[in-house]
C-alpha cells in the first residue's frame, strides 16, 4: 500500500458550523497537517477523525475501514438535539505520494550519515537526561 496524501473535503454542513463550509479542506501528509493546503482546523473534528488517520494515510482504502466510499462526519450532534449547532460531513480523498515529509526527513538523516542503528542515533541525539524536559 502506498503512502497517501489525505484530503478531507467538506461536502455538506447540516445546520451551522462556525468554521467549515462546503469545499473547505484539511490536508494531511504523514506525519502532519499541511497548513498551506488546509482551511480551518477544528480540534473536535480532527479528534473524531483521529482513529482513522493512520490507516488512511498509509493507504488502507476507506471501504475496508467501513467508511463506504469515504465519508466521515464530525462529532457534533445532529440537529435533533436542542443544543446542537450542526454536523459537518467530509469526503475522504487519498492521493498516493512518492515521498512524505517523514520520508524526506529520513532521507536527509541518511545523507548526513546520522541514520543507523539505535545506538548510532542515540550517540548523535540523546541528551544526558532524556527523561527531563529541561
Amino acid at each position: 500500500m502506498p503512502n497517501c496524501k489525505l484530503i478531507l473535503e467538506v461536502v455538506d454542513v447540516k445546520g451551522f458550523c462556525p468554521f467549515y463550509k462546503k469545499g473547505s479542506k484539511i490536508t494531511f501528509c504523514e506525519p502532519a497537517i499541511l497548513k498551506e493546503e488546509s482551511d480551518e482546523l477544528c480540534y473536535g473534528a480532527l479528534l473524531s477523525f483521529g482513529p482513522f488517520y493512520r490507516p488512511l494515510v498509509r493507504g488502507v482504502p476507506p471501504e475496508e475501514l467501513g467508511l463506504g466510499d469515504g465519508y466521515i462526519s464530525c462529532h457534533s450532534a445532529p440537529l435533533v438535539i436542542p443544543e446542537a449547532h450542526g454536523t459537518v460531513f467530509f469526503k475522504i480523498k487519498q492521493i498516493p505520494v512518492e515521498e512524505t515529509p517523514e520520508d524526506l526527513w529520513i532521507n536527509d538523516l541518511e545523507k548526513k550519515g546520522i541514520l543507523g542503528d539505535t545506538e548510532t542515533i542515540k550517540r548523535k541525539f540523546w541528551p544526558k537526561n532524556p527523561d527531563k524536559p529541561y
Partner: protein
Amino acid sequence: MVRNKVIMEASEINGRCPIYEIGDKIVIEPVPGENVSMINLKETKAICTRILGTALTSYTLFLEYAKPSQEDEDKLPWQTALGPNHSKCPMVGPPYTECGYVLFKVYGLPQEEG
C-alpha cells in the same frame, strides 16, 4: 473535593451498530485519592475504537472537574456542562456507510472523593 463520574450513554442509533444498543454506557470514574480517572470496565458495555477520538472531544475531563452550583446566580455558563452534552461517533450512516452513527449523551454525576 467533589469530582464527577462521567457517563457516555448511547441515546440514539441511526442505522445499524454492531456494538452499542440504546442505554449502553461508557463510565469514566475518578480514582479515589488520586488526580487521575479511569474507565470503569465493569460498568462499561464496550469501547468501540471508533469512538475513542470522539470520546476525547466529549468533555470527559472537563465534566470530571466541573463544579455544579446550587444557586442559579452563581452558575457560570460552562457549569451547565455537567450535562447532558451530546456527541456522536464519526460514522455517517446509511446509505453512505454500513454502520450507522451512535449518539451519546454525556453527563457528570458528582461524587464525594474518598
